[in-house]
Structure formats: C-alpha cells, structure tokens
C-alpha cells in the first residue's frame, strides 16, 4: 500500500513536469523542423535545422526587436534595482516626516490596475514626443511599488548593529547603503532582478500601446505581429517564441538558487 502510494506520488511529480516542460520541448522541435515536414508529427532527426532561426533573424526584424527588448529591459531593470532599493531602505531605516504616509502610498498604489492610467499616460507621453521612443518605453517604468515593498521587508531583517558600527566609524548614509547594506541584500536583489527583468522583458500591453513602427517594437510585440501575418509557418513562429523565451529562462536558471530564499527572507507573503 505504502509502495503503491509512493509510486502514484512519483507519477504525479513527473507527470506535472511533463505538462510544464512538454510544450517547450514540442515547440523547440517544431522550430528546428523544415517547412516540408510541418504537417507530420514524426521527427526526422537528420532533417532538423537552424534555418528557421536564420530566416527570422535575416529576413525579418527579430534581431532588431531582440535588441530593443534588451535595451529597454536593461534600463528598466537597473533603474528598479537602484530606485526600489533606495526607497525600500529609506522606508525601513531612515527617520523623516511623512514616512508612514509614503509607505501607505506604496501599498495603496499597488492595488491600482495599470489600465486605469493607460489613457492619460499615453496622452502625456505623446505630448512629450516620447511615443515610439526608448524614453517612452523606459522612463515611466523605473520604479515599482511591489519592488519597494519587497526591499523594505528585506531591509527590516538586517541587524541594525552593522549600520550603527559604520556610523560610529564616520560613514555617511549613502556610504552605509552602498557599501554595507546592498552587499548584504543579495538574495533580495536577485529576487527583485528576476521579477523586474522577466516582468519587463515579457511586457506586452504597454509596449504595444507605446510603439507604432516595427523598428521600435519589443520582442513580444514583434512576435505577435509576425504571428498575425505568418501564422501558417509554425516552425518560424516557434523559433520566434523560443527566442523570446530563452533569455528569461537562462536568467532564472542562473539566479534561481537565491530565489526561494529571497522570497522567504523578504517576508513576501
């Protein structure tokens, strides 16, 4: 009986991994298939080819979209890591009038769906001439209330004694923040990095609103428009999907060992 249960348990465990990984495996295989073999489920290993990737990069602007996404995600992620950490630290450690109000604001504004400000933000950005520019795709997204909350919770767990010792040694708040506090925050920073990078890299609603010409598309917007025109070429669509998916998976694999710890220590729950 016990053995039976154990066996069933492992079927569930492995089976669910099949459900999560299966679609990726099938789309990778498809992305390597020549168009002539698209209609069959059989896979002829000898015929697998990287041609579809070559095709979407040389004949279609996937490389440009990839670079756009990389630039935007890099700026937004870096801005969030810095600004959210700064704000989170101030809310956790520094005394100033209005601190509680600002913290409440962080929490309250988290509840507002971004769609509420979609129209005015679009009008504002178009008045600034920032629609269809890198400025428009990055500047409005440089801080995140969720990220600030996450960092504050983490900084509360760092023992005060470390900072007090540094104050006695004559270090300024800025020095303490950059030299002592941030290096201690690696799990929280890694967690934030994963959230911010994947969130921005995968973002679709805002970039599709804020870009109007193909040369400014980010990868998700580009893939969607490519799919709209060439949906019968599933091998190339899948190559595009894999190109879009790969960077976030690689980054997650690199930082995942910090991830659960980061979430646990930030009290994000």
């Amino acid at each position, binding site marked *: 009986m016990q053995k039976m249960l154990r066996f069933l348990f492992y079927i569930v*465990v492995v089976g669910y991994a099949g459900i999560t990984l299966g679609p990726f495996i099938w789309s990778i295989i498809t992305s390597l298939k020549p168009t002539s073999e698209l209609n069959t489920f059989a896979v002829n290993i000898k015929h697998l080819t990287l041609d579809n990737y070559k095709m979407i990069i040389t004949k279609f602007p996937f490389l440009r979209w990839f670079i756009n996404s990389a630039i935007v995600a890099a700026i937004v992620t870096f801005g969030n890591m810095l600004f959210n950490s700064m704000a989170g630290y101030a809310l956790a450690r520094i005394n100033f009038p209005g601190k509680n109000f600002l913290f409440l604001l962080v929490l309250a504004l988290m*509840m507002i769906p971004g*769609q509420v400000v979609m129209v*005015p933000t679009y009008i504002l950005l178009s008045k600034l001439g920032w629609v269809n520019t890198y400025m428009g795709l990055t500047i*409005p997204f440089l801080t995140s*209330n969720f990220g600030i909350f996450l960092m504050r919770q983490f900084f509360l767990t760092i023992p005060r004694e470390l900072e007090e010792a540094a104050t006695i040694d004559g270090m300024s708040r800025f020095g303490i923040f950059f030299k002592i506090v941030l290096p201690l925050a690696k799990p929280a920073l890694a967690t934030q990095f994963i959230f911010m990078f994947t969130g921005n890299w995968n973002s679709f609603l805002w970039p599709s609103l804020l870009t109007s010409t193909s040369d400014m598309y980010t990868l998700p917007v580009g893939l969607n428009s490519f799919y709209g025109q060439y949906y019968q070429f599933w091998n190339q669509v899948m190559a595009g999907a894999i190109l879009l998916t790969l960077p976030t998976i690689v980054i997650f694999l690199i930082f995942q060992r910090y991830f659960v710890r980061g979430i646990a220590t930030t009290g994000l729950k």
Partner: protein
Amino acid sequence: MGTKMAMRKRYLYEALTGYAFMLPFIASISIFLIGPLIYAFIISFKEFSFLNPGASRWIGFENYIKLFSDPTFKRALLNTTLYSLGVVPTQLIIALILALIVNSDIKGKTFFRVAYYIPTVTSTVAVSVIFLYLFKADGLVNALLAKFGIQGPTWFYDVRFALPSIMMMAIWSSVGNYMVIFLAGLQDIPSELYEAAEVDGANKFQRFFKITLPMLRPIVFFNLVMSLIGTFQVFDQAYVVSRGTGGPLDATMTVVLYIYRTGFRDFNMGYASAMAFVLFVIILILTLIQRRLFKEETY
C-alpha cells in the same frame, strides 16, 4: 546648547537623506501614476477623444450610466468574472499541492522546482502562440485525443471552448508563482510543531489540516488577493489569441481588452477611463471582502 544644535542638524540631515532616497519614487508616481489617475478621473466624466481634445465636453455620469446598458461591457465583465472564478481556485490548489511536493524529501527536488516554475518566467505572448500551435484543430493535443477516439474541438476558435482554453493556459503559466510563495511559507513553519504532533500520534492528513493550513493562512490570503487582482486584469492572452478582437463572438472579450479597444481603436477615451475606474472599484471591493473574511491579514 551646542549638542542640541548638533542633534537638530543631524536630524535635519537624516530627514533630507530620507527624502533624497525617496525622490525617484516620489517623482515617478507623481508624474506617471497620481497625475494620470486624477486626469483619468476627470475625463471619465467627459466625452473625450485624444484625436480632437478641443471637442471634449462634460457629460457628467453619462459614461458610467452607459456602461450598464453596454452589452459588450456586460459580456466582458461576465467573461472576466468566469475567468477569475475558474482560474483563482484551480491555480491556488495546484500551486499548494506542488509546493507540498517540492517541499517534501523527493529526489531531484531542485529540478522539479525549476521545471514547475519555468512557465511563470515565459512571456504570455510566447505561451499564447505555443498553445495556439499545440491546440490547433490538427495539432498535437487533438492528435493525442484522437488516439483515444475523442474528436477534439477547435479550442481557441470555438465559442464554447475559447474562454476555458485561455483559462487553462493562464493556470499553466502562473501556477509556479504561487507555488514559490507557498513554498517560502511552508519553510517558515517551525518543524517543532510537526514533531510535537507526531509524538501525539497525528497522521499526515491531520498534520496538514491542523498545522500546515492554519499556519499558511496569511499566505493563502496574500496569494488569493494577488491571483484575483491578476485575473481581473487579464489582457495579453485574450489579445494574442483573438488578434485583438475578443472573438469568436466576444467569447474572449475581457474588461481590459475592451478598455484597450475603446480607448485606442475607437479613441473613445472618456468612456474607456470610466470603465477602468469601474474595474478598479471591483478589484478594491473584492480585496476588502477577502480582508474581512481572513481578518488577521498580513499587511
């Protein structure tokens, strides 16, 4: 006297440092959140088009009144509600089961954790095209079903199956997120509790219902709120799958997709803003109700 001055100076310096650290946040939310929020509230009482701002005019509550007789909005609200009702509980139950699995002493724990989480880091657009491919009329899924003698539907293009298909896709791609948060919560439960229960002769199920679940209560609350907020804002999948139309026959029209179409295709921006505020109020009320139900919440 001197020390008092020095203390005041230090206090002032401390406060200024605090504001300096907060400045990017304050600037960002003022310009890109609070300002637009006020503006959106104002134009929700106007007939307003971005293309011709000069022709905008006050119409009072007309936009809000119109909502209740707009069949597409009603349909979008119904779809979004069904979507949320289907996705939230299913996703949280699966997430909890998976968290319990990867928290137990199985072989290859890290592998399974990563495998279960990977859909979460994947772009909704990539997931949408991958699922459109897997679930197309003559795709892999229907071919497998045919092996069991089942004639599969056309999933995303069938009026009855389109919304459930998007729900299934959403569950698949976001379960990992909630799993990780449950996992962090599980690891926080002191092992002494389980040891004491074991001494008292409690079996696995008793331990789960008497220790694990009550201890996880705040995390269940957090996940429930996050999942609810997320599901009411569904857009990407519906947009990609229906090519922005909400079709077939409005079967995949969601509130946010309708806001997007009204605001940026029909340029009826006052009406779109009114809809967005109704959505906001719905999310707010649902969150407050849950807070009531759970009483001792986390934050």
